[in-house]
C-alpha cells in the first residue's frame, strides 16, 4: 500500500490494525545485509533474508535470528552516510545524511548541479527543508 495510507492506518491506533501484519509501504526498499532497528523492540540487527511480508533479522550481540514484519523495520543511518533515495517523489536524488531523528533522515542534496556548496564557518546560510 502507499505510505500515505500506511501512516493513516498506523495513526489510527486501532487494536485490530496494531495486532495485524499489514503490508509495508510500497515505497520502502530493503536489501540483505542492511543494518536495521526493530521499531517495536528497539533491537538492532542485520537483514539476512527478505520475504513478502517478513524479513529474517540477525540480531546484534549474538541474540540469534528472528522473523520480523517489514513494516516494523527501520534502517539505521548515521550522520555522514552517503545515500541515494530509491523510491518516492525524490527517487534518484543523492546526498549526505546530516542528522537522523527517529525514522526521518535529513539529507543535504548533492544531486543538483554544482553539488554540495562549500561553506565557510562564518557564513550565514538559509536552509530550506523539503518534506516527503
Amino acid at each position: 500500500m502507499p505510505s500515505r495510507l500506511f501512516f493513516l492506518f498506523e495513526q489510527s491506533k486501532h487494536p485490530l490494525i496494531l495486532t495485524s501484519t499489514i503490508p509495508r509501504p510500497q515505497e520502502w526498499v530493503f536489501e540483505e545485509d542492511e543494518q536495521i532497528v526493530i521499531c517495536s523492540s528497539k533491537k538492532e540487527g542485520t537483514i539476512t533474508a527478505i520475504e513478502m511480508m517478513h524479513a529474517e533479522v540477525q540480531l546484534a550481540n549474538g541474540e540469534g535470528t528472528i522473523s520480523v514484519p517489514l513494516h516494523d523495520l527501520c534502517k539505521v543511518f548515521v550522520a555522514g552516510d552517503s545515500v541515494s533515495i530509491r523510491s518516492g517523489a525524490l527517487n534518484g536524488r543523492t546526498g549526505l545524511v546530516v542528522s537522523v531523528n527517529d525514522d526521518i533522515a535529513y539529507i543535504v542534496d548533492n544531486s543538483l548541479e554544482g553539488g554540495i556548496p562549500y561553506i565557510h564557518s562564518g557564513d550565514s546560510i538559509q536552509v530550506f527543508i523539503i518534506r516527503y
Partner: protein
Amino acid sequence: MQLLEVHVNLLRIVIAPYLPTPHPMSSTGCISKVSQTWTPWLGITVMIVKAGPHKGYKAVVKNVLPGQTTSSNPRLEIQFQHLNSSSPFKIITVDYDDVVEST
C-alpha cells in the same frame, strides 16, 4: 541549501563520491560550489594493463583514494563493465599505475 527530509526506509547507502578540497571563498564573499570538473577522473573508462586475471578488462573509475602508501600514490576504485553473472559490476581497488585511460 536544500535539506531533504526523507523516511529512512526510502534510502540506500551508496559509495561516497570523491570530492577534492574545494577552492577557498572568493573575495566577493560568494559561496563557491564544488564543481563536477574538479573530479576529472570520475567516470573515466580505463583498461587494466597490469598482468593478472583482470588484465585487458575495461572499468569505470568510481572513486580516487589519495595519499596511499603505494609507489603510484593514489589508488583508484574501479567498477567492471563486462557481464559477469557471479559478481555483476564488481568494484575493485587498483594502483594508479595499473590502468590506462581507455579510448
